[in-house]
């Protein structure tokens, strides 16, 4: 499982949507359930499961699955 698929798997659980509803291009605006509370829970879950910590600016800027995956790789997560 690559990093994008991994993040899709985590996001599907946190957001309560099927993984098939998500891909690298999926943005926050496209998923009604992806509100700020779930976004925070998603970030914390990714950090915990991948053993990384996002920077403050990254947290504010990440708005899609692809951006989260790219930031996670930048923070040392395996691709």
């Amino acid at each position: 499982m690559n990093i994008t698929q991994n993040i899709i798997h985590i996001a599907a659980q946190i957001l309560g949507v099927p993984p098939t509803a998500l891909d690298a291009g999926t943005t926050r605006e496209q998923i009604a359930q992806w509100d700020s509370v779930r976004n925070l829970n998603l970030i914390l879950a990714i950090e915990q499961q991948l053993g990384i910590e996002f920077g403050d600016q990254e947290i504010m800027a990440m708005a899609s699955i692809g951006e989260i995956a790219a930031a996670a790789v930048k923070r040392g997560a395996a691709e």
Partner: protein
Amino acid sequence: MRRRCHYTAPRLVQALDAVGVTPGRSVYAHFDLAALGIPEEVLLGVDLFTVVHKAMRDAIGERDTLVTPAFSYSFVKQEAYDPATTPCRVGAFGERFRQCAGVVRSMDPIFSSAAAGPRAAGLFANLPRDCFGDGSLFRRLEEEDAIILLAGARFQHITALHAVEQEMAVPYRYRKLFCGEVRHPEGCRREAWIYNARLMDDRCLHDFSRLEKICRDRGLLAEQQVGLGMVAAVSLRDLFQTARQEFGGDPWFLARGPADDPIEIERQRLPPRVFSTMLSHNASMREIVETLQPLPRDLVSDGMDAATDCLKKITPMTVHQYPSGTPCFTWTVPERWACHRAALMDENGKEIFATNDHPLHVLSYSLPFSGVVGREELFRHLHSYPDRPDRIPFIFKPYERDWGLCCQDAVKRTLTNDTYRVKIDTETSCWTMKVGEIFLPGDREETFLFAAHLCHPYAANDDLSGVAVLIDLARELARRPRRRFSYRFLVGPETIGSAAWLSHNRTVWPTIKSGLFLEMLGSACPHSFQLSAAGNSVLDTLGNMMVEKETGAWIAPYLMVIKNDERMFNGPGIGIPMASLSRRQKNGLPFPEYHTDADLPDAIHWDNLEASRDLVGRIVDELETGDLPVACFEGELFCAGVPGFDYGQFGYPLAHGSPFLDGLHTVRMLARRGDAGFPFDTIRDALQYLHQQGFIRFLDKGRLA
């Protein structure tokens, strides 16, 4: 690894306190929970909403009211609104908060809010159906000087400012009507709400940055850093007052700009369709009908503008313009509507019918729609006349938000597939509704008004026949060098046109003694004359007199023949008696082609149209040339005091006529009084005698003809 947090709940409470969120005032709070970062309590397993909600409660106390946006935009999205179940579409806090125990949600189907606290129910009680208008939630919050709180949210998010925009009638927004269903505890109810919508142009996007700077510079905006973001607060009263002051110098103060004329903005977005329609100055009634019939004269439309412009060029007409959203009594001027194309196709895209075949195949004022629908769903939006299966209906729903197609019922019956493709390409825009008025002043201020509507696309008898008679009469009267009475002629969109003109011309109401509405005058049947609500106005009497001589004519009380613009004039608070002249069948449809594609010039009985024109001409002639007696006595005349007065012959007729010795009723009209009227000669002789004795004077002439 232990993650680093950005703030703590106590710090949030401290910041709220520092910006002024303290017990004693209601708070309208906008949240962007992500903007503040991660609170320590979340890392300890507490839910983010719970952390922030508790901090809010700690700050304002249990005895004060917390209100948050819970906007659903339901009516804008053509959805029903159920305050209990419809999700909040503006953030996680509002969505969670609205579901908490003890929280109530307003019934606004577009900009609902959720509130908890002692004033919550009162703030939401009996809201006007106008999201940002007088008495709206935001105006109520201003009255009690609530605080606007921005917890991570930006100044740009202060929705309440739209209330000031509406109050100041900013040019880049207009009052737009939205309709839909709202679920109340007692059941679903169809409602219409006004939202002061912005024009669909980037220049009209809201931009509160200038107001933000002013508030900050004046120390009205208290701010505290919390985590990664800011918590800020401003008194709603101060905010509104500051905005109002700044609006004085710049109506575009809260918009991105640059400023431009709103109609010009809409003209650029949706250029008007140009028609080459022209009328010669002496166009006959037939030419008027035949020329204007092919125009798409929907309520507010390019076709209506073209038709009005044609009429303006052949008469001394003033065209009044009422912008979309203008309140007219309880009505609202609609937007301009245009249909580019509409079609019904089968699943494979094969066209079954389209507006190319006939423009009436689309519901007038249909919303745009594109998609595949089941037959049952299609039939909810597909209009036909089962009793006239070969005709395409003319259906209009300018005040409902719905999509729709129209077709022959014979075609509808062939639609047996499970699914169909619908493509409706329509647009609306902020525009001006046109109402044409021809005012012909006379020697006397007392005025008689004639009205006809112009807004039935592609139709001839309903409604151009009435327009043609009205225009022909107006032209003839305008040519007269002198008129005894004054006359007004109104041509515009049905009902809303009358509402707009009346609501903007209150000062002339007292001068209008009565009116006559004209329509369907090219039908085969004899005249039908409907009395005004009062039933005893000058034109009631005159119309009655002229029509009753006609074989087969139908004279009926108010609303027993037609229901149209006369309702506005006769309505409460206005009380201008307006009768109606038409030619409609007594039973069933007004005329066979009514509201169908068959209402064409070919179906007009031109001789009948001419006869109707002659009839209204005779009405006006009686007004202009009839003898107008005025009583020189008060109360009932003491006949024994009139030397030689034959009380036995004249007393009874005079008693019936004397209330109308007012200079508006001619001698012929006075002879109409009493149960069966009186011989004209009797009335004439009585009045002549009283005139000789000085009890009567005649206006204009001074003697009987």
